């Protein structure tokens, strides 16, 4: 376990019940300082409830959580050191983007006008800074939501689905911005459904399912984990499978009428190719398969589903699902 001094978020046994529904159920999470942390999970897994607890919107039913070294009950003592965007960005529709940012930043001690201008510039809203937010599209509100989370200049930024509703260009901008925040020394904790985006940007991930963390680690280690694989496009898959099954430590399966996939802890694609060719199998393509965050995520979620349901949440009444 990571030493508390190195972590900006530490939760132990964090739980939240809504009546009989366990939205979060003994969540243990450690977010290292300076990381870009992806918090993944299916709908209703407890991501938003966890974020709401970390930001003081919801009181935990049990367990402990520390943010920047302070228990979340004393979150106010942290002042402006945390910035957050929780779920859909919500602003005062009758106020302009500038006025909204000024108002919200003033609650965190206030900022110079130049900082508001910089924040709007960073999210590409300078041209509409003085337009009423009620006229903004969802994507523009999302950008403004990120901008407000960055004011004044927090150490920890908590973002709930920051790329939700953005077009591909906007998503790329958010990705660059997140990387920039980390370079500036901020820790970014974000929940997302966009696994490819998380894989490209995050340094660490945790997968939550049924209110519990079922897997977490550094993205690099996660992607290196699991048995590597290689796909062969062949003229005779049946004979190829016989050959591959004959190799010690190798598992193989046919994916379609022309493709077989071999997996092993230590895989020598060239040697396998040579065996196939010697056995009279014509190999037209060799594709190394690496583990993706998507496969890691799906493995973790499926593994949690197949585990005994001793702590599984009871059927949701919809209150949590609607929050995810």
């Amino acid at each position, binding site marked *: 376990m990571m030493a508390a001094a190195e972590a900006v978020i530490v939760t132990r046994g964090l739980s939240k019940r809504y009546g009989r529904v366990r939205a979060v159920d003994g969540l243990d999470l450690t977010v290292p300082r300076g990381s870009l942390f992806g918090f993944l999970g299916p709908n209703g897994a407890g991501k938003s409830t966890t974020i*709401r607890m970390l*930001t*003081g*919107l*919801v*009181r935990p039913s049990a367990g402990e959580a520390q943010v920047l070294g302070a228990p979340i009950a004393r*979150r*106010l003592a*942290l*002042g*402006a050191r*945390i910035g*957050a965007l*929780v*779920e*859909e*960005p*919500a*602003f*005062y*529709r*009758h*106020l302009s983007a500038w*006025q909204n940012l000024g*108002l*919200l930043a*003033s*609650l*965190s001690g*206030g900022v110079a006008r130049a900082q508001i201008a910089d924040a709007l510039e960073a999210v590409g809203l300078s041209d509409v800074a003085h337009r009423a937010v009620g006229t903004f599209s969802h994507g523009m509100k999302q950008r403004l939501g990120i901008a*407000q989370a960055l004011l004044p200049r927090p150490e920890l930024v908590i973002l709930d689905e920051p790329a939700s509703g953005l077009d591909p260009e906007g998503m790329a901008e958010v990705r660059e911005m997140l990387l920039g925040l980390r370079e500036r020394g901020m820790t970014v904790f974000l929940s997302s459904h966009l696994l490819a985006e998380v894989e490209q940007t995050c340094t660490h991930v945790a997968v939550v399912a049924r209110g519990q963390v079922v897997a977490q680690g550094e993205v690099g280690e996660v992607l290196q984990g699991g048995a590597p694989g290689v796909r062969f496009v062949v003229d005779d898959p049946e004979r190829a499978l016989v050959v591959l099954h004959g190799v010690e430590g190798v598992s193989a399966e046919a994916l379609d009428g022309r493709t077989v996939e071999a997996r092993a802890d230590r895989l020598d694609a060239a040697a396998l190719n040579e065996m196939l060719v010697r056995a009279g199998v014509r190999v037209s393509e060799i594709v190394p398969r690496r583990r993706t965050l998507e496969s890691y995520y799906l493995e973790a979620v499926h593994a949690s589903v197949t585990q005994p349901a001793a702590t599984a949440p009871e059927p949701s009444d919809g*209150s949590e699902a609607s*929050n995810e």
Partner: protein
Amino acid sequence: MKAAVLRGELSKLYRQRSTYAGVVVIVGLVALVAWGSHHQRDRLDVTQAVPSEFVVAGKTITALFLAHAVMDPSLLVLMPLLVAVVAGGLVAGERQTGTLRTLLVRPVRRSGVLLAKLVAGWSYAGGLTLLLGATALGLGQFVFGWGDLVILRGGLTIFDPRLGLIRLAEGYALAAVAMGVVATLALALSAIFDNAMTAAGLAVAGLLVSSVVGAMPYFEWLRPYLLTTHLTFYRAIFDATIDHAELALSAAWLAAWVVALVAIALVVFGRRDVTC
């Protein structure tokens, strides 16, 4: 309560166009009453309500008269409705739109946010009440001119213009306090219910129920404790001799109501999870 939180609440409230709907309604109402009074002056002449042997010389319908005449019709139903709609939306409205979430992730105390909203609600209630008086005086001066304040309540009371203006100022100040209590009631309900219209509707419904109960002889024993019994305490200002003890008692009851409502709102708002 942080000054920034209060500034923020006042800024949000007074930059919202819908806040001024009440102003339009109030100014419109006073204008209609002034216009109607001007064109039906003979029927409204207060001298018709006194015995024929009375001789009333000079003007009876004046700016001061208009400012007093619009008080009860406005303050009994219309103003509480307008105040409840605005104050009822201060918490529940923000919960509905999600801005409460945006607000509360900032390093602000919930109690500070609620008290700032309360002050904003009071400012609206007080401001609207004073606007009623100022509009009535202004339009009354334009249409009828200055003169004595003639009161017809349990007899005929006539104040000279100077004393009449003082009594009106005092009366409107107390009415502003009464509307502030209505705002407190609506805000407390706004902290409890998720829907702004529910909070506003329940506040008005509560006042109406309280009025009905207070008017029934069977519930006479309950009358001293009812909010509506004391909301009209501004009327006592227009008696020839002011009963200060009665005024103080009503003020104390209203203060007790405010303390109780604010305490309930603070507990509920402080403990409720923000899930929408």
